[in-house]
């Protein structure tokens, strides 16, 4: 197992290097910090020239990539080309906020998704099964931005009609309350609901399919034949084995979401890493965008590795060399 982990880490290094160059190439081609300045009729041409030199826009992309690499290693993830401020504090701050929302939404989605999946499989083709199948497909289909806006309007209308504040529509905190409080939960409640909806749909469908796969296995039939109570068959034999794919899927999903639920964070004005990315992309802040992409790439690689390790840990049949 250790050899497997080390090998995977070593394989990741060239993957990161290639992806960093490709990302740099495409991001450089997609944005030009000087372009937006030209929208100001009074902009000094001397300033445009200065900025071109400072941001190395007059050099080829491989040369500019080298400058970026140098900055990444001399200043943790580099300094912004626009503000000249270190990028690392922004990344850690925003990643922390995103992690907070993702952890809560994924935990709730997992608990509910697994429970619904189990029950749907046990009561296959029942009203409960059909109802939650429909809810799951609705969750998959619903556009995130639309759902987010709908929730905002709904809870503002509730407030206006009954003067009851259930959830806030934007921001991380509200005046008068600390970081860890009911108020913070009221702020992140709606984004959690939005993110949870798609994840719940995913996990409930996976769990249901996995349960149905296991529930008809020979060893389950044997357990029943031996007189084991049904609840014990389900909990001790079926659920545990059915959970294996869920654990790996959730690890992958978690890693992907940590890269930033961009639309959700933008609509709800969460100071998260997805929102940070969009702001920097619009400002053509190349180094900040690259920092985000590298952090996201590392997270995806790490959580892929975690998923593989968990799979090996949970299923003794799987052994990595």
């Amino acid at each position, binding site marked *: 197992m250790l050899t497997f982990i080390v090998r995977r880490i070593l394989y990741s290094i060239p993957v990161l290097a290639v992806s960093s160059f490709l990302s740099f190439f495409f991001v450089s081609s997609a944005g*030009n910090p000087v372009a937006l300045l*030209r929208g100001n009729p009074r902009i000094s041409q001397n300033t445009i020239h200065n900025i071109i030199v400072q941001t190395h826009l007059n050099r080829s992309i491989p040369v500019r990539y080298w400058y970026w690499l140098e900055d990444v290693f001399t200043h943790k993830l580099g300094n912004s080309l626009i503000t000249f401020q270190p990028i690392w504090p922004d990344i850690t701050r925003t990643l922390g906020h995103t992690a907070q929302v993702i952890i809560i939404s994924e935990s709730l989605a997992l608990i509910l998704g697994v429970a619904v999946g189990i029950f749907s499989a046990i009561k296959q083709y029942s009203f409960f099964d059909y109802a939650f199948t429909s809810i799951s497909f609705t969750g998959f289909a619903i556009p995130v931005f639309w759902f987010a806006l709908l929730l905002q309007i709904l809870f503002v209308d509730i407030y206006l009609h009954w003067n009851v504040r259930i959830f*806030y529509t934007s*921001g991380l905190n509200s*005046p008068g309350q600390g970081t860890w409080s009911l108020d913070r939960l009221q702020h992140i409640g709606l984004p959690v609901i939005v993110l949870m909806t798609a994840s719940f749909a995913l996990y409930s469908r996976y769990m249901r399919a996995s349960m149905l796969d296991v529930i008809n296995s020979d060893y389950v039939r044997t357990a029943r034949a031996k007189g084991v109570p049904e609840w014990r068959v389900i909990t001790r034999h079926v659920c545990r084995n059915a959970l294996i794919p869920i654990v790996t899927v959730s690890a992958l999903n978690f890693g992907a979401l940590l890269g930033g639920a961009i639309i959700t964070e933008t*609509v709800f004005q969460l100071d998260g890493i997805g929102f*940070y990315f969009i702001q920097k992309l619009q400002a053509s802040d190349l180094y900040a965008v690259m920092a985000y992409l590298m952090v996201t790439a590392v997270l995806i690689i790490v959580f892929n590795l975690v998923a593989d390790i968990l799979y090996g840990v*949970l299923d003794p049949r799987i052994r990595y060399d």
Partner: protein
Amino acid sequence: MHRRFWLVVGAAAALLVVVASASATTQTKSGATLAAAPFSQAWAQVPRTPAGRKASTTLVFGMEQDVTGFNTNDADENALWASITGIEPVIRGTYIIDNNGNYKLDLASSVTATKKDFTITIRPDAYWNWGGKKIPVTNKDLVYTWQQEINPNNNVASNVGLVNIGSYTLKGTKTVIFHWRTSCPAGTVDKGTCAVGPFADYRDLFAGPEGVMPSQALAGLDFNKFWSDCVCGNDGKPISDGPFMLTNYTRGQGLTLKANPDWYGTKPGLKEIDFKLITDTNSEIQAMRGGEVDAIYPSPQTALAQLRSQSGLTYSSITGFTQEHWDINVQNPGNPLLRNAWMRQAIALGMDRHSLIQALYGQIAPGLQPLNNLEYEIGPNATGANAQFAKWSFAPGKAIALLKAHCTGGPTKPTRGNTAIWTCNGQKAEFNFWTTAGNQRRQTSALIFQQQLGAIGIKLDTNFEPANPNFFGTRLPAHNFDLAEFAWSGGPDPSGFDTIYECGGAPNYKQYCNKQVDALIHAGDGELDPTKRTADYEQAAAIMANDVAIIPLYSPPNILVYKSQIKGMNDSNNPTLEGPTWNAEDWHW
């Protein structure tokens, strides 16, 4: 399996605890002497309800864009919201421009200009509050500001006018006499690093929203790097000579202004103003409806109409200084037909600007009129007898008559759905139209005008591309278009548009050139008599209107929405870059 399962659960729980606790605090910048306190710490002290905020004289303002920094003299930080939040109420200038576009003395007690000199006297009761220390604002601050702005190593947003200053004389500690240049070294005029003679728009030179910088507090700091996340001195402590101080700012979240006790003007009616970042306009609207913020200054969107009818809110809409327009490329590689004035006139006559404005802004800014002056946007200089472009208002019949005199094959009358296109000098009246992608207003505009011009026999091929890097980065500078729609930000003084119309001006993407216009613009730039100056610019505007150098469309409205309980905000909707905080000291519950 049993043991492994609980091992996994335990590890996940531990990870949960570690990550959640790590994310519980907002990071502060470590080791940086210029950091302001985190926004979340101040935010926690602000009452959560409107009634609570009223009792504690606090106001929460929705902030639509985050800032890249507060040094609005720096090209990368020269943004409206940086000015509104961190400069206008904090760093004052010689003049302030009120909501009617009038210049009023602010930091200066007197400003005079002659053909030789430009004299500024700072008011005797102006002080910097630098981390609690009271330091007088002096003439050295003006000199420092000028020196920073003309330094070729600094990324200044604009030093137009400041490069006309060659030297200075200090008188006492409050007065400085700047001497206009009488000559420039070879090659510097073309580069824009030097100019000769008086600069008529001298009132804008040290005015808000860039203001006068504190020389003592900024000593030793790099212009391109200071004020990236605070308005502070070289010790990191906040500094202000305005009604408020920027006490903390956190990128991605917001900032806090607290009343400055050393301010020379009217004592602020509020103790604190908090700007909460809400970039999504729909979220801004919901936050306003739900009482999470007390005021917003949103980009104009149709969704704002729901706020017009909500009780307890005051909705203000005024014309701004932005010039949304069509550039018409009159030289290569543009279509040669556009070099003919009659073709440009026909295009203008075929466009119903009123109907476009109604479609875009009818619900949120009723009464908005098309722009009819190429130099001025609002006030008597832009309307009435000075609405020179009004003669090209929608008259499709006249457009067809013009085209008929020079072309063949088109419709005999304006016809919806017409497919007959005019052929003029062997060339079809078909033009490439370009504008920015992802902009709903411009998409609507393109569709409407495509239909209207099609009705009179002119075909418009509409194209959309990203503003950055394509449209502004390559297409416009390469003049690779026939017609292009975009906007320029202007101000009460028309000199900001000089380079747009001057022969060979860098932003003169349409390659318009009229020597008479150039002469009038240059005369206006150096004319200190305001009446003669206005006359020069109006004459230039009249010539350009005749030439149809551009087709001005409209100026998007500036909208301010606030709780009706708030007093002093009825004049706050300011169309200039001063923004709504120009009179923040007058706000009170």
